[in-house]
């Protein structure tokens, strides 16, 4: 490996820094200098201090843990219910046709619309938030899993049959591995939806967690806390996304560089 890739990385980083500075940081600082009120845009150094303060005062970490716990449980539920259903519906056409109207209509009722109903049903009990998170993820998991199963190359199934495999063997040795990449991609997308749904639920109907943290800070006009909270939400979301992408890369490793099979 010569200087080519290294130089390109350096080049990209420099451009990236210029971009962030020019588009975000510079206008921000200018606005502060022009006397914009701290409520609207806190000075940058304050943001830094706030991060430290929040961690030290044991406000941020518990909120993060609570939010993470909720989203992981809700997501796990969505996966455990969604993947099997997706496999069944993808495999058996009639089952899919039976469920299709139901799936299609629920898909359009966005998760956020369920929030008031969940509050009515569960109050601020945890189950309410878990329901919203589950809902946000469930349909995406099911739809992507169905697409994965449907997308299996029929020639692969035929080949397996000419090699003596029975239906059960075909399902386990051919359909499942072939559907895996699309399913994992679906999991990544579903998690992102779950994360957003969680924050929304916490903004409206919670007394703990990151969403509640920034809503509460807003009431006390602590814009610095709000911004830090947003950054933390972004970092967590991005981290999960990165992890999923690494898993996807692993699952897809038999693909060629151009993505051919």
């Amino acid at each position, binding site marked *: 490996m010569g200087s080519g890739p290294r130089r390109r990385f350096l080049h990209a980083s420099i451009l990236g820094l210029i971009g962030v500075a020019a588009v975000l940081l510079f206008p921000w600082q200018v606005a502060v200098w022009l006397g914009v009120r701290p409520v609207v845009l806190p000075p940058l150094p304050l943001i830094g201090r706030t991060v430290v303060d929040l961690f030290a005062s044991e406000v941020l970490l518990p909120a993060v843990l609570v939010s993470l716990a909720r989203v992981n449980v809700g997501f796990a539920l969505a996966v455990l219910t969604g993947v099997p259903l997706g496999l069944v519906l993808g495999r058996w056409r009639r089952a899919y046709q039976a469920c299709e109207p139901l799936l299609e209509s629920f898909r359009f009722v*966005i998760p956020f619309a*369920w929030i008031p109903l969940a509050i*009515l049903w569960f109050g601020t009990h945890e189950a309410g938030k878990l329901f919203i998170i589950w809902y946000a993820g469930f349909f995406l998991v099911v739809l992507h899993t169905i697409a994965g199963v449907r997308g299996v190359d029929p020639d692969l199934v035929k080949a397996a049959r000419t090699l003596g495999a029975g239906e059960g063997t075909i399902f386990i040795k051919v359909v499942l591995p072939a559907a895996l990449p699309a399913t994992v991609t679906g999991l990544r997308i579903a998690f992102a939806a779950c994360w957003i749904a969680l924050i929304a639920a916490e903004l409206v109907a919670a007394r703990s967690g990151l969403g509640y943290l920034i809503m509460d800070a807003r009431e006390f006009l602590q814009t610095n806390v709000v911004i830090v909270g947003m950054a933390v*939400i972004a970092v967590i979301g991005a981290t999960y996304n990165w992890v999923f992408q690494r898993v996807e890369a692993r699952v897809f490793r038999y693909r060629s560089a151009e993505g051919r099979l």
Partner: protein
Amino acid sequence: MSVSSTVASSVIPSPPSVLGALAGQLATGVLVEHVVASLGRSVLGYLAAAAVGVPVGLLMGVSPTARGVLAAPVELLRPVSSIAWIPLAILWFGIGVSSVAFVTFIVCVFLVLLNTLAGALSVDGDLLKAARTLGAGRRVLFQKVVVPSALPGILLGLRVALAGAWGGVVVTEMIASQNGIGYMIHHAQITFQPGLVIGGMLVIGLVGYGLNRAFLVLEQRLLPYARA
């Protein structure tokens, strides 16, 4: 379900009561007002997002420098889920239309931009070569090759953003507005009218579905050659 039975039994309203609640709102014209208000805000944020997202996406698509510079801020801001902007929006714009429109804008702009970028990047190199051998200069290449090639991507971004806009509006209105359909079901929840809550959800779903369908029709008009 660990929900007390008294709560459960009183909040699964019968279909007639749902329809009744909706009809009530419809009759007084309030329902229509709410829906129109919500649609108005979605459109506002959506159009602003399209006005920003499409040009910037195309720019990033054709200019590697622009791409390098803008990619970082975009990648930094994107993971901040749209919803998390709500408190900040309230701090900046207070309760009302501006906040809702702003959050909608944020939701939509990333979707539009990234899909437009993907569309612009997917232009077949052979098409560009062919055009150049037919005498096309840079501007013509952009107008007559890049933009049409990117069009499916642009439209996909616009369609996804539409759904995002509708969702964003609904949830923001629950927190930061005094009218609109999101506010309506939130208010119905507070005043314990489950029939209206569910009715509102149905309306939200219907409008969302309608918007999607309308957009698909538009897409088919614009892209007849992509039928296959």
